[in-house]
């Protein structure tokens, strides 16, 4: 046997998959079917981008009607007419809310944005979280306006409650609870009756009142969406606890409610809100349509959240409950300190996708005649100056919805990673 000392010649370096050349080579190596698929995909993408750019780049920003757009474009087809956005963008954002009061929703949503940002950070400080409550209390007043006094009372009461937390911590828990209830009751009573006690010159002091039917556009979507998101989470958690409770009656009531709401389309519930709710309430009651819609959307979302939380509760191992019981914790302590923190962490993706769905579903209010972006789009398209406009308005609305929904889903993924404590 001859033994040679020659080295085996080195293999060529692996093909680089970077750079255009590398990518083409990698593609070619994958075989003809992949190559064809890629070519088709690239062609489709190029055609899409070309069509969109060609449509979007259109010097029609100043046009006052579709006819003027056509004049500017001089017979070129497939081009956007941006005049409609230039003329109506403020309407799409706030509806028929008085133009002079535009700063109020703007301020409210800037504050809300800051508050939400402060709350959503994983390592926010307790004080920041408390301060973040203020914009939520302030927003209804900023939006609806009216005499300031009731709000001052409520706001002061809320601030006092926060301080009371510190003062009352050492005393007996039951007395503590009773004092707080009494305090809230007194504040509400005072808020309702304060205007009678004031001299007429001071009575109407405050922001210009704005009626609910003047609300519209994305202002309405955000208002309904945010309120429903805010109220449906605690309610959904309560329903989930009810459905998993050991008490048969609570279980039956929660299950019945959840299954009824989940079995019926939201649009039917909204119709109930707009036409039928008055029949179920004491004769003569007639309250704000926006509040009615918010109640219905909240009930709807809470049923879905309840099912997600129920799944998460089932995923928490039984040993956790038993461990808590062996430490002597009662039901509420067990749920609050042991079970819910774990269950809510598991249910983040589901809850956020429910929130996204709720925000998208706010567009359904256009069907019962509220002027959300889609309702306004119908209005604008019915205007003789803009008949024939389709993609400009819907594209604008779609873009804004996309930005917010996409941001929410990205946030949930980020939060999931942040809260990941397991080792994988």
């Amino acid at each position, binding site marked *: 046997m001859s033994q040679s000392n020659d080295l085996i010649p080195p293999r060529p370096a692996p093909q680089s998959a970077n750079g255009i050349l590398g990518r083409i080579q990698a593609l070619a190596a994958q075989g003809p079917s992949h190559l064809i698929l890629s070519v088709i995909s690239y062609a489709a993408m190029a055609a899409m981008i070309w069509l969109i750019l060609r449509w979007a780049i259109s010097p029609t920003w100043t046009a006052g009607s579709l006819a003027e757009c056509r004049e500017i474009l001089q017979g070129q087809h497939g081009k956007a007419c941006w005049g409609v956005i230039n003329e109506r963008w403020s309407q799409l954002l706030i509806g028929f809310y008085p133009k002079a009061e535009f700063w109020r929703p703007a301020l409210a949503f800037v504050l809300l944005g800051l508050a939400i940002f402060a709350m959503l950070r994983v390592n926010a400080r307790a004080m920041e979280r408390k301060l973040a409550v203020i914009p939520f209390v302030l927003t209804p007043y900023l939006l609806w306006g009216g005499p300031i006094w009731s709000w001052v009372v409520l706001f002061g009461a809320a601030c006092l409650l926060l301080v009371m937390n510190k003062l009352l911590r050492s005393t007996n828990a039951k007395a503590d609870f009773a004092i707080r209830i009494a305090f809230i009751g007194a504040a509400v009573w005072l808020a309702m009756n304060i205007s009678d006690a004031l001299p007429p010159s001071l009575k109407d002091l405050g922001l210009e009142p704005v009626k609910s039917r003047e609300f519209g556009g994305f202002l309405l979507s955000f208002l309904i969406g945010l309120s429903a998101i805010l109220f449906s989470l605690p309610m959904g958690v309560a329903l989930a606890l009810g459905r998993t409770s050991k008490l048969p009656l609570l279980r039956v009531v929660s299950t019945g409610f959840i299954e009824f709401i989940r079995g019926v389309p939201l649009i039917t519930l909204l119709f109930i809100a707009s036409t039928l709710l008055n029949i*179920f309430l004491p004769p003569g009651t007639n309250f704000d349509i926006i509040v009615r819609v918010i109640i219905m959307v909240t009930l709807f979302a809470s049923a879905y959240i309840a099912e997600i939380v129920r799944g998460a509760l089932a995923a928490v191992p039984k040993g956790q409950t038993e461990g808590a019981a062996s430490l002597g914790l009662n039901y509420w302590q067990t749920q609050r300190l042991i079970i819910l923190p774990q269950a809510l962490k598991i249910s983040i993706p589901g809850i956020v996708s429910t929130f996204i769905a709720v925000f998208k579903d706010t*567009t359904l209010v256009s069907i019962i005649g509220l002027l959300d972006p889609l309702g306004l*789009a119908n209005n604008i398209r019915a205007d003789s100056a803009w008949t*024939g406009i389709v993609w400009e308005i819907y594209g604008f609305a779609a873009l804004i919805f996309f930005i917010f929904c996409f941001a929410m889903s990205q946030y949930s993924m980020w939060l999931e990673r942040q809260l990941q404590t397991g080792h994988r």
Partner: protein
Amino acid sequence: MTTLTDPPKAGFRLSQLLYDTRYRSITIQVIAMILVILGLYWLVNNTIQNLSALGKDFDFGFLSQPAGYDINQRLVEYSSQSTHGQAAIVGILNTILVAFLGCILATILGVIAGVLRLSKNWIVNKLMAVYVEGFRNVPLLLWIIAIFALMTEGMPQPRDFKVGGDASMILGETVAVTNRGVYVPGVVFESGWFASAAMNWLAVIVVLVASLLVIRVVRRRADAIQEATGDRPTTWWQQLGLLIIPAGLVLVLMGATMQYPYIRGFNFTDGIHLRNSLIALWLALSLYTGAFIAEIVRAGILAISKGQSEAASALGLRPNRTMNLVILPQAMRVIIPPLISQYLNLTKNSSLAIAVGYMDVRSTLGGITINQTGRELEGMLLLGAFYLVLSLLISAVMNVYNNRTQLQER
């Protein structure tokens, strides 16, 4: 020796109701029960008072009164002399039609997009991501209205299809896409066994289902032979024949002929007219739900451990056979439960039909009927009951399937 004695029996004290865990749950439930009953009583009482103040009673008699309105999209015979009950049935069938078509197309789109999104090919992967994210993050209603607006305002008018017009029919002069809807060829029965076309179609479907049952028997036998001998008899031609011949025979016997749409005057006649409302609703529902199904399919495939596909390729299976025989059957178990809820969502979302004027059950029973008769309460109750029953039916059917494909554990 110590004797064990029972602790002294204390008399029942009222405070035990609150502090003794044995009694507390009963106390809470009794209180909750009283609250629920009071709440229900309050609602019912208000309703009775309000109804009597409005001079209305609670009565479903309106269902047998003549409806007096037309429905342009219908699967069964209906005229304006028909009753409100019949109008509701037309609406129910329309809801089921669009939900059924939507579920099929959404599943096809979703499975394709979900599988392609896992492709190693960068551009294919990204294109599918654009589709999924684009549809998932924009409201469904916006898509329905936008597609409807595009159809009614972007497509040529029927009169442009006349000789010398600037529009032309597609697919070999058989399909016309106009701003009034899409005209496709239809089948008419010249010597049908029943008076109505719907009954004739039902006969064809019954025959098809019967052939499918026979085909199942053939397959079972082939399976049994394969189990016993290891050789699988060739049955594809038997299956194909069983599927095609009886149904074809029935069609021929009933004198089925194709009827192509053609233009007469300013509009198309003959063929089947698919209205814009149906097309817009169907496409939007399918594209939207398809994006969600794509994510479900992707998650289902990712849930199957990599060892499965490696083992399959070690056995020499080609990639598409690995997908069909190894990955998908296992992934189905993960996919089915969320898929059920997507089908349910699609069915409930079909009630958005009202935005484009498609006459589903919400537009007939829950819309025009209520407006004409003023029976909001009864109409809404019936509507709610219908959706509840439909949801329960769909989930029951899918649960049966789910139980059959589930992993049989000890």
